[in-house]
């Protein structure tokens, strides 16, 4: 057979900027082509059970006639997957199930969301709102998001041009990275970080510069930041309130970061999913600081605030020139977001202040149970101002590192926590810390504390 010539393709450099000619055409298959309305969590135990380490080069598969055939890696996975590490969670979750452990590791509630939001989704399904939504969001939902953003930050935004609805905040992050970061761009990240940040940054081909937040208060090391940031920095990614530490970036910290960003012309990507779980201080949105809206993408979601983490309703708010990039990537990642849930989310966002006040009260009560319990057990507990997480130093119990401690905790005590080393670029930096969550009903929290009091013995060091 003819051997095809090896010739160079005439296509231009594959950065997102080269998409422009395709986007200008518009798309008939984009929902809302006609502009009419008709359309974590860090740990995923069950899906992690199905995840594996880097794929093996050779394996066998049965062909249709049943004879085994060696796969000579015909499906070679891309280099970007080198950064995707998941094994530790797989082990933890399997151990947890095996030992019937109380799970204070998973970052999602064991209680459900409010009825008024669930009913709204049910009504939307019954009303036939089951076809594609407009790609960047159901118009009413975009409007509700803009209204909520104004209430929370005082900023007036255009729901048509500055709001993009995504499948959870995870997708908002992925779309922001893939839409706005070019290969080779420098991005600053604070460790410990939610695990999708590193993965999506590596998918976008970014050069990551990591700054570690350290106990006891996980304050931003300003000098380190000043030497890391430069005119070469494309963006900085900030999660506040912060998973896993519960830290909330203070106004002083945000102001300092803001002036460095303005000085060096740096974008800011804000993950604010826990903004309604701010207990010890008020949540501050970077976008509301002077000169910052024009360079900030603010991301959030429904899941944590309304205990509906499985609905996958998230969003990104940004000025039009940044929203453009986010929307392009989003349109190739998922195209559109779940329609009935968007209608329900519209109702949710218009919840009265009392809902949010009660949410905070409930979580503060849960936090008190856990934090006091952990202190009584003998952990060194670091103050957590927001989120439903708290990190503790486990070293009083004499285990070698965080993973060993978590395994011991599951097997011998029957409680699950998450080893935080996986949230660092350099795992060594997290080996003394583990993360507990208090997004569980009070009885579960008390039982877990009891188990730990009974069975966790401090070692004499």
């Amino acid at each position, binding site marked *: 057979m003819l051997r095809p010539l090896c010739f160079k393709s005439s296509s231009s450099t594959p950065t997102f900027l080269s998409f422009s000619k395709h986007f200008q055409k518009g798309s008939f298959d984009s929902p809302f082509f006609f502009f009419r309305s008709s359309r974590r969590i860090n740990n995923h135990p069950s899906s992690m059970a199905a995840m594996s380490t880097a794929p093996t080069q050779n394996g066998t598969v049965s062909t249709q006639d049943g004879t085994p055939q060696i796969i000579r890696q015909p*499906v070679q996975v891309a280099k970007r997957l080198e950064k995707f590490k998941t094994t530790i969670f797989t082990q933890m979750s399997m151990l947890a199930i095996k030992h019937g452990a109380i799970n204070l590791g998973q970052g999602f509630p064991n209680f459900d969301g409010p009825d008024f939001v*669930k009913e709204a989704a049910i009504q939307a399904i019954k009303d036939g709102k089951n076809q594609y939504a407009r790609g960047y969001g159901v118009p009413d939902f975009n409007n509700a998001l803009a209204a909520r953003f104004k209430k929370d930050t005082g900023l007036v935004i255009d729901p048509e041009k500055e709001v993009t609805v995504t499948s959870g905040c995870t997708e908002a992050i992925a779309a922001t990275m893939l839409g706005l970061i070019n290969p080779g761009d420098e991005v600053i990240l604070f460790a410990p970080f939610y695990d999708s940040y590193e993965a999506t940054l590596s998918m976008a081909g970014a050069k990551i510069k990591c700054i570690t937040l350290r106990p006891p208060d996980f304050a931003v090391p300003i000098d380190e930041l000043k030497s890391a940031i430069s005119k070469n920095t494309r963006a900085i990614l900030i999660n506040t309130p912060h998973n896993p530490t519960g830290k909330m970036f203070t106004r002083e910290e945000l102001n300092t970061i803001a002036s460095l960003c303005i000085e060096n012309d740096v974008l800011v990507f804000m993950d604010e999913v826990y903004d309604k779980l701010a207990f010890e201080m008020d949540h501050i949105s970077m976008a509301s600081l002077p000169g910052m809206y024009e360079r900030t993408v603010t991301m959030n979601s429904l899941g944590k605030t309304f205990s509906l983490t499985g609905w*996958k309703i998230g969003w990104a708010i940004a000025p039009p020139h940044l929203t453009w990039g986010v929307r392009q990537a989003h349109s190739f990642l998922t195209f559109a977001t779940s329609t009935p849930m968007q209608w329900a989310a519209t109702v949710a966002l218009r919840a009265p202040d009392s809902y949010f006040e009660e949410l905070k009260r409930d979580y503060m009560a849960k936090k008190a149970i856990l934090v006091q319990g952990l202190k009584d057990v003998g952990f060194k507990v670091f103050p957590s101002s927001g989120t439903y997480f708290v990190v503790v130093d486990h070293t009083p119990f004499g285990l070698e590192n965080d993973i060993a401690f978590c395994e011991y905790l599951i097997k011998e005590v029957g409680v699950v926590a998450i080893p935080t080393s996986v949230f660092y670029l350099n795992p060594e930096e997290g080996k003394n810390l583990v993360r507990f969550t208090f997004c569980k009903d009070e009885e579960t929290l008390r039982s877990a504390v009891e188990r730990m009091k009974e069975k966790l013995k401090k070692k004499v060091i």
Partner: protein
Amino acid sequence: MEEKLSSVAKTFSPSPIQELSHLAQRCNAINLAEGFPDFPAPPPIKEAAVSAIHNDFNQYRHVQGICDKLALKMKKMHGLNIDPLTDIAICCGQTEAFAAAIFSIIDKGDEVLLFDPCYETYEGCITMAGGIPVYVQLDPPQWTLDPDKLMSSFTCRTKAVVLNSPHNPTGKVFSREELEVIAECCRRWDCVAITDEVYEYITFDDQKHETIASLRGMQERTIITSSLSKTFSITGWRIGWAIAPAAAASAVRNIHVKLTDSAPAPFQEAALTALSSPTKYFETIRIEYQLKRDLCMKLLDSVGFQIQFKPQGSFFLFAELPKDCMLSDVEYVKELIKKAGVVVVPGRGFFHGKSGSDGSCRHEKRYIRVAFCKSDATLNAAAQKFGELMNTRGCPKLYC
């Protein structure tokens, strides 16, 4: 900062397609353009979703039962042995499954073959992953695959071939012979096939959908993507999947978890009900869509179209403008909106790549795509509007 970031936004200008959509809206046109149904989703499936929400299936979850049912289905439909524990990744729609598949195997500079005319989302995805889309033109009017054209498109950098069958926009179902040609190339060049099979249950006459993965040597090198959306008329629920050998499925799953974390939980539950639908359901939709196809063909026939390619699957009809019509696709669509109050899609958006020296892309401005995934009421209303177009001499008034 504007200079650094918004060169894309700066070059944006209003497109003819945007103008058409505004026109359609102003005229309140009957919509035969959008590729999703205007009739309700099946009641049992909606009820299953409602029930899931009531029963608190609202936190993150992965519903393994979906994988079990898909594995059974693949065995029944295609004779393939799929391991439900390792070979399937549930995603937010076929869109995400495809994006994750691309990201899982495409490195910078890898070439990906696509068949033109083509659904336009594939290209953006490939480019975002650093890949290079390479188009192989299907030959009108039957949209046949020319083996020589295909073979000469492979290079040492070709990593994958994207195969959408049943096909959007043409309604073609790739024949076994064509699948064999593609398979042979994949085997020889050690390439991966990534399929989009969302219309797998919508085939007509005696046509059966076959997956390329069932051909010799292909299961180990194919990533199948599909979804509930078109089969069950729930395009807004975002439940799709990728099926591949364990290593690839694992890679797809890992990427998916970083892209979206999980597919909407209550709809995963409802998927169990959908995927348990009796055989009769699938037979019924075939029959119903076939009737709609036939009605659609009659509609176009009544306004002077000579349909040379009858759709074999999907719910699209890709029709060449009548020979004596001098208008371009965009102009025709505009006229159809203004004169008949019906909107369809100009075909040029589905054609990519450079015209060959044989002028093979002259036809790219001569096609319209009509969606017949519409209620009988909608199609009959369109038929009535078309009927009103006929002037006293029995000639359609549209472009005379």
